[in-house]
């Protein structure tokens, strides 16, 4: 289970790297907004990337910075949808 979590976190970071075009490595509890890795427009790209990477549909009602603020929160959100 722990290995699965780490694997998913790596995939989340991979999506972040794809949308930013940079080899970033944020801490799992680092705020992606405070650190400047995400803003409102980039979050839309991030969500689209997550949908593609994880094969899920993220509804508009779930679009909030609070749910996608850290890699850990994203991982928990995706685990809840699985």
């Amino acid at each position: 289970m722990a290995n699965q979590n780490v694997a998913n976190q790596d995939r989340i970071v991979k999506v972040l790297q794809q949308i930013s075009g940079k080899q970033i490595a944020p801490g799992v509890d680092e705020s992606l907004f405070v650190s400047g890795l995400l803003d409102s427009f980039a979050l839309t790209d991030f969500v689209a990337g997550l949908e593609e990477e994880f094969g899920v549909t993220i509804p508009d009602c779930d679009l909030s910075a609070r749910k996608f603020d850290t890699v850990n929160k994203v991982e928990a959100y995706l685990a809840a949808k699985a």
Partner: protein
Amino acid sequence: MAYLRAFGSWLPSRHVTNQEIAAQVDATPEWILEMSGIEERRYAADDETVASIGLKAAQACLQNAGIAASGLGMILVASGSTDRFCPGPAGQVAAGLGLNSTPALDIPVASAGSLIGLAMAAQFAPTLGRILVVGAEIMSRRIERSPEGKNTAILFGDGAGAALVDADTGFAHIADSCLFTDGAAAEVIFVKDGAFHMDGQAVILQASRKLPRAINELLTRNQLAAADIEAFLLHQANLNLILRVATTLKVPRERFFTNINRYGNTSSASLLIAADEWHRQLTEPITRPIIFSAFGAGLNWGALLALPV
């Protein structure tokens, strides 16, 4: 049938620069420009009202169409910033035009109201004839020009626009429209006790997905591609959002008419002010479809397709 026949607009004379706003909200003019694409906006004078500026846009539109107000079958007035919500400004606009029995209805939907008005007018026109759609806003009285209100104070301006939808003649035929509402997200944009509230981040998130989706739905069901569209006329909410929609649709930004740099976000007036300026700059009749789209309080959003005649 319903046709777009003419547009009109009216802007207050007072120019408010980013420098003036920046000093009030603890920001820099450069930051305002970067965040919004806005260089200046207009503010109404103390003696002007939503109805009075809406009337001026209405008169300009009728003059451009070359018809008298007595020829109107209905008036629709969109505004989210009027001082009095019931009755709203529609009746006053009608009275200002000298009409005392023509139906005049309010659409109290900030930002998306004019699009809703155009879509409704297209439905009413076959039975009522000529429908005048007006969007008028004095947002400067609904925002807080202080550091606490920075995120909205930098965006909004005042102005009015109008469109004449005609059952018989015009330069473009309104072929289709789609409107959507999601009341579960109503807290994202609302007016309460005379003050405008907006969660800007949530608006960007929602609009940057919903607008392209609505436009694509309209294009798909009319067997069109985004590349087929001559001009995209969007609610002038934020230049970055408009460019975002262009990128999502894979359309050159030049196809998206923008004037937000000069007027800021004039809420429901912006779509028709933009349409008026776009239409006035045309040197030849349109030869390809045009798309209108807006997103606003409600949440309400949608798109409208007009085809050349």
